[in-house]
């Protein structure tokens, strides 16, 4: 997979993950172009489109479009499956996820994605394992954030 984009129906980017190194300028250009093309497609059309020399696989969940770019030889259906799996993961983590969850906790959305995919390849196929890793890492983080808050209180007293 080359990259993954999440954007809203209004064309606002909600998440972007690039597995190929590109300059910011190129990224912006690609994003703009793709968001336009995908949004222009009607709901009943198929989830695949060819764009430059890549294949774009996208799917709409509620108001959010999940859009992946894969190479010519990659399997489209498995990419749809990846998107779906990611949505499931987000759903499990946030508890019936909505767009706002991803907006306000965008770093968490990234962390989940990073546990699921690495370098554009599926890293962990088990949902349970992904969530476990995230939870444990969060635990590590939470403990420390609590500690910081505690320190703050001590100092401000």
């Amino acid at each position, binding site marked *: 997979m080359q990259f993954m984009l999440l954007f809203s129906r209004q064309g606002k*980017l*909600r*998440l*972007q*993950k*690039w*597995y190929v*190194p*590109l*300059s*910011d300028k190129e990224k*912006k250009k690609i994003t703009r172009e793709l968001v336009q093309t995908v949004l222009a*497609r*009607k709901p*009943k*059309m*198929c*989830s*695949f*489109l*060819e764009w430059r020399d890549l294949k774009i696989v996208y799917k709409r969940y509620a108001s959010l479009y999940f859009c992946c770019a894969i190479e010519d*030889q990659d*399997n*489209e*259906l*498995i990419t*749809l*499956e990846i998107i779906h799996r990611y949505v499931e993961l987000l759903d499990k983590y946030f508890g019936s996820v909505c767009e706002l969850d991803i*907006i*306000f906790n*965008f*770093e968490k959305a*990234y*962390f989940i994605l*990073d*546990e699921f995919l*690495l*370098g554009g*390849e*599926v*890293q*962990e*196929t*088990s949902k349970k*394992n992904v969530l476990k*890793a995230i939870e*444990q*890492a969060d635990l*590590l*983080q939470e403990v*420390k*954030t609590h500690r*910081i808050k505690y*320190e*703050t209180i001590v*100092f*401000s007293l």
Partner: protein
Amino acid sequence: MALKMVKGSIDRMFDKNLQDLVRGIRNHKEDEAKYISQCIDEIKQELKQDNIAVKANAVCKLTYLQMLGYDISWAAFNIIEVMSASKFTFKRIGYLAASQCFHEGTDVIMLTTNQIRKDLSSPNQYDTGVALTGLSCFVTPDLARDLANDIMTLMSHTKPYIRKKAVLIMYKVFLKYPESLRPAFPRLKEKLEDPDPGVQSAAVNVICELARRNPKNYLSLAPLFFKLMTSSTNNWVLIKIIKLFGALTPLEPRLGKKLIEPLTNLIHRNADWNLCFCVAVLISLSSGMPNHSASIQLCVQKLRILIEDSDQNLKYLGLLAMSKILKTHPKSVQSHKDLILQCLDDKDESIRLRALDLLYGMVSKKNLMEIVKKLMIHVDKAEGTTYRDELLTKIIDICSQSNYQYITNFEWYISILVELTRLEGTRHGHLIAAQMLDVAIRVKAIRKFAVSQMAMLLDNAHLIASNTQRNGICEVLYAAAWICGEFSEHLEEANQTLEAMLRPKVTTLPGHIQAVYVQNMVKLYASILQQKEQSGEKEAAQEITQLMIERLPQFVQSADLEVQERASCILQLIKYVQKLQVKEVPVAEEVIALFAGELNPVAPKAQKKVPVPEGLDLDAWINEPPSDSESEDEKPKTIFHEEEQRHSRHRQPEIDEEELARRREARKQEQANNPFYIKSSPSPQKRYQDTPGVEHIPVVQIDLSVPLKVPGMPMSDQYVKLEEERRHKQKLEKDKKKKKQKKEKRGKHHRHNSLHTESEEDIAPAHHVDIITEEMPENALPSDEDDKDPNDPYKALDIDLDKPLADSEKLPVQRHRNVETLKSPDAEVPLEEKKSKKPKKKEKKHKEKERDKGKKKEKEKKVVEEEEEEGKKKSSKHKKKKHKKEKEEKSKDKKKSKKKSHHSEEEPPQSVQNGTLDDEPLPPMSSYRLLAENPYIKMTYDIQGNLQNDSQVTVSVIFENKSTSFLKSMELNVLDSLNTKMLRPEGSSVHDGIPVPFQLPPGISNEAQFVFTLQSIVMAQKLKGTLSFIVKNDEGSTHEKLDFKLHFSCASYLITTPCYSDAFAKLLESGDLHMSSIKVDGISISFQHLLAKICFHHHFSVVERVDSCASMYSRSIQGHHVCLLVKKGENSVSIDGKCNDSTLLSNLLDEMKETLSKC
């Protein structure tokens, strides 16, 4: 100080966090930009603070802003600061920010190397994980090179969480640093059989991706993957494996056949993923199944069902799969033409494009016209330029494929091309033009027709070129002008065409087209001139000359240099012709001679294929290159010395201009490289003005609502009808012939004739078409390399993986300079010493004699050679010594030495007793057990307890070189368990191996000892390990590996300790020993041998022996007493044991049972 901190933290409470920022942005919809710039200012302030939490918060906000499209590259350094935070909370944010905004151009990225290395070796797996994840996004060639070894080590990390990440990231590393592939590949291959499914799937992913690009290097892995495919239940992995096989089957057709069965099983196995598999299988195997037309037929039928489905996704995939099958089995797909054409009407562009792809392979001579006709209708209907352009290129592709194979009527094709010129706003004008040129040049028979069509195009050029939006299509005028000029002899009304070319409007065309116009109007002019002169119309000839002279000046004024130059040159020529014409000299012949000769089509790759003549070295310097010290402006002087001087004399001021320009250029360069210089980018408006001749072109608006129909242009449709009629006629004729034939040959060829149906080949072309093949240079070298893209990043990974690893291919490992001073025996050290120490000595001697550099080098070489010889001698000496030793030992043994010796690999018969056992000869025994063996090396080992240290054992391993090569750089490594660990030199990690402190010449064996520490000794242990070594012979050196399992039996923790019978009796009486017993049946060897075996293999000593009963004793390194009472029955042996530890005892007895049962 404290107050400051308090203040800092209070301030921080008022800082915006990410949520506040997001909320703020949502609340400032009207003035978002202003709000964000305000936020960025705040963030900049926050980044200046020392508190890492504040910084992390700021970086987190920046990451969000980056997603919104704001540039945050200025904060790269701060991101690195946050990455290096010790707390995971912050580190995580830092790495996230880095992975989002770092790329190869980020200059601070090299500062991260050490930080990442530190994080990779962090004890916290999540630190390592987050570093790996981040690295996967921004790995650069430098990072890949520096960290490859660290990541490779992580591939064998104890935690699967790290292992799988490390395996996956290796793919990125390979891409950036292809040299790492070979050293890392063996370990990667190992991971295919990792116990953790996640790691396994990661390894499959990586190898599959690698193999997809260069499948031939991975053919040897096919059996392994086959096994995985039949055993794995993970659908994600299976899909990847199928994909891999898809890449492999074309190379190994037998594989395809073998795969059919397991794959069909897979499809049936689970319904949910059925479809996914179907498509994957079809796609991967369609290319690999040679003679399965029946199954292919079935596939195609199933696909038809998919395509007819209302679900657009299925339709798309059906078409996609169909196109894969098409490549190998075009016929079976062709029957579904109706369906495909139907898909062309689909609302969805993706599906239409897929269908178009399919059409490409479906055409035949019979249906080409029909299909293209349909496409032309679509071209007219199509909305949106992209799809229309796609249609256009497809039409051209379809028609021109395999050298115009399917075109029977080129007149039709030319008219199709002409019709395509009516397309508005296409980008592919040049494509149409190229086709026109190609056809006109290569199909001689069509030239007359082509010329007439092109003349018409030129006549109506105003329609094509008038609209500025349509200037893509005006490229066809380039072709039209050239064809009319080059083949002007076919032109009927040359005068009219010439006039059309001389119209003032022509000057609005792009420069390169005008240039072709100018050049070709002379050709036209020449042929007209000849025609008129031959028919004696002198006045007409002069008229045409006059016309040229009148109209050419408009081109002379052209801003385009090419046009100007050609025009002025030709104008002068024609003026001269005019002079001659006035004198009534016939000139046509001479003018026409300017363009004599025929142009032949040359293959596009012809130039590349011209073989280099023998003895020509293209890389050799023609002139010696100027030395680097010379500055640039000196260079021309040395070569064109005189000229330069003349220039400077005559044109002093211009030189100054040049110089100024040069300086300006230099300054620009400097500024471009100076990060502190703010560059002025040319505004778009300005650029527009710079382009010459765009604005002052008079644009004539024409009413486009009127359908463009060029008068007199033949419509391609009429050819379709004509063709049908023609075919019908042909058929009739053929039928007649057949009937005749039947009459003539009735009987004999009866069958043959009845089977004779109209096949594609029977359609005779309308014209006799002679397609000239493209010319290639003589003795051109055929090569396949033309098609490869030199910039393909995967090309570098085309590496033979089966070749053993060479010495030089080791991954660079970061070491401290003083590595030699480390006390750990390093295999490389002796090598280095060899090279550095000894030559020094000899050098000293030589220095006095000769100081010539070249000779010194030679000497050094010699020295090294001598060294090697010395080494050999040494080793042979060593060998001799060894033999001596062995002999000595043998003799010692004969003298009833009581202690065993572990220092030779084949122990001679030993007496192990303090009893009276010597009278009977004992069979040879060796305490050294086989550890592992391969064609190069054999390892045997023995484990001895250490009396001084109750938690250590020494493992002596004998390495025997079985090959004829030199073995070196041996390194032994084991995977430690919780209980048993190899003792490594301080500072080395648990994944480092221990170098074997010697090298092995052919046939030599030597022993090395490794110390292991253990906690509990009551249980036997097994440790997995690997010996890696380098095999060096005349052909080069290769890297080899040998895996082994080190078995720590409980007996190896015992130390043979003599014990007197009274002490033994006391021990038994003390009563704090646990008891256990075993009985082994079927013992045939003598009691004496039996005892000897127990003594030898289990480290016991006989305390007392009475007839067929003996008491034995041993002690463990941790002080456990073990007492045995061995009784021999007729055919059985019973052993009663007592020991402080019941587990140890039962394990010991089990081991003994095993030894005895072998007797």
